[in-house]
């Protein structure tokens, strides 16, 4: 592989006269995890949705290097192709697991859905893969037939990750995957994510407001304020030596323990 797996150029999204994000450009390289940090309302999630083709930006373009057919413009693709991409080569981990899971179906069915969607029609095989993934995300196998409604918040989040990774995606979008979880559960989830990203050589865009999460998981960081990227660079560099006043404020406002 030679080029970046995902490349954004001047992505701008307005809601009416309000600007959610303006002129965001970056390259994401294979195997790299890019963090997007900033306070609430700074346009992080809007940017993520634009990148993943869930929102259409008003300006700019997002190019994705597919596994088979070369580079495509995410927003020029037909809806059918984009949705196919989204459930095979991509993953999307929502902050609220209820958005990313089928709450009325068992954990096994949740994990198996992508397999069935791409044509797997062997129950035993689907179930085998579902069990495999359940144990990879450290959930007891006797919970395979339970619905996510019977799961705790941390387990739901891990189930959501398993559901996304079962199709061997190359690129995962994560929107505050650890939001709303208590710290010990967060720590476990972060450990798990770090392991999975490493072992599957995943590329990822991770949106978070938690600088600790960003430090642990990401290689590079973009700091957003009021819809614009105010600082970007290697994670350690940005966090240890913030240049922009807003980043300095962010770093300074981490609560000391």
């Amino acid at each position, binding site marked *: 592989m030679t080029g970046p797996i995902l490349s954004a150029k001047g992505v701008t999204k307005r809601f009416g006269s309000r600007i959610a994000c303006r002129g965001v450009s970056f390259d994401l390289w294979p195997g790299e995890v890019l963090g997007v940090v900033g306070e609430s309302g700074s346009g992080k999630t809007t940017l993520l949705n634009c990148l993943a083709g869930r929102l259409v930006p008003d300006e700019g373009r997002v190019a994705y290097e597919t596994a088979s057919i070369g580079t495509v413009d995410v927003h020029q693709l037909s*809806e059918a192709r984009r949705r196919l991409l989204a459930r095979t080569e991509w993953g999307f981990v929502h902050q609220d697991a209820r958005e990313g899971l089928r709450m009325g*179906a*068992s954990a096994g069915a949740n994990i198996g*859905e992508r397999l069935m*969607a791409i044509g797997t*029609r*062997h*129950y035993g095989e*689907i179930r085998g893969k579902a069990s495999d993934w359940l144990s990879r995300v450290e959930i007891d196998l006797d919970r395979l*037939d339970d619905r996510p409604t019977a799961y705790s918040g941390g387990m739901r989040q891990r189930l959501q990750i398993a559901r996304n990774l079962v199709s061997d995606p190359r690129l995962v979008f994560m929107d505050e995957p650890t939001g709303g979880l208590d710290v010990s559960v967060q720590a476990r989830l972060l450990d798990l994510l770090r392991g999975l990203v490493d072992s599957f050589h995943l590329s990822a865009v991770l949106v978070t407001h938690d600088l600790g999460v960003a430090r642990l998981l990401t290689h590079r960081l973009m700091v957003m304020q009021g819809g614009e990227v105010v600082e970007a660079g290697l994670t350690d560099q940005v966090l240890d030596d913030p240049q922009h006043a807003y980043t300095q404020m962010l770093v300074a406002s981490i609560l000391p323990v």
Partner: protein
Amino acid sequence: MTDGGYNYAYLDEQTKRMIRRAILKAVAVPGYQVPFGGREMPLPYGWGTGGIQVTAAIIGRDDTLKVIDQGADDTTNAVSIRRFFARVADVATTTRTEEATVIQTRHRVPETPLQDGQILVFQVPIPEPLRMLEPRETETRTLHALSEYGVMQVSLYESIARHGRIAKTYNYPVLVNGRYIMSPSPIPKFDNPKLDRNPALQLYGAGREKRIYAVPPHTPVKSLDFDDHPFEIERWTECCALCGSTESFLDEMIVDDAGKRRFICSDTDYCQERQEEQRR
């Protein structure tokens, strides 16, 4: 014209035209749900308003109509609809499957094989097979348009995970002509194989939801399943208590207070014909 102030076959000519256009489109795209401007009919939703509108749009004076409800010709619903068309459309009615040109049905496909030129009209309560899995109509339409049918398979997976087999016994989803997933209306899955490459035209009318869809003659209809859990139909250890058939769909009846049971063909015409043959 036939009965006081009513137009032939109850609906006015423009309405029948509109329904025929929907039917033509439905036949052209097998399994696709075509919206139509469903009319208020002189019976409540759930009693066959969809089927009755389809029948009204296609029926003519030289047709012979049969109406069945759960396989029976003599239930209230079947009798009323048959009498309705005899009155407003001046058609001959019959209970014999072979004699009928139009068969309106609720919940069954006749046991007697259908022929070229016959039309089977189904009454459909919920036309959308994905409804229970995906409540958003906009989303189900997209899923059909892009043939994203993973979610349907999810429901079958769930059934096996919970019951050890696909426990759905009626309204069993089918794939029509390799393209659209269709609800066959609440017929028992016993009848699903009869839909496949049937020489008769199958029309499905949903009155409340105002949808018409169709399976043209000789169109492949496949019941969904898993490779290691193939589709199977119901089997009985008993035979029909009246005609002795071992090949028909049997209703279980409790016949006394001690819980004594009998199994009887649900298709009354098929059962009677067999009994008459045996008496001869």
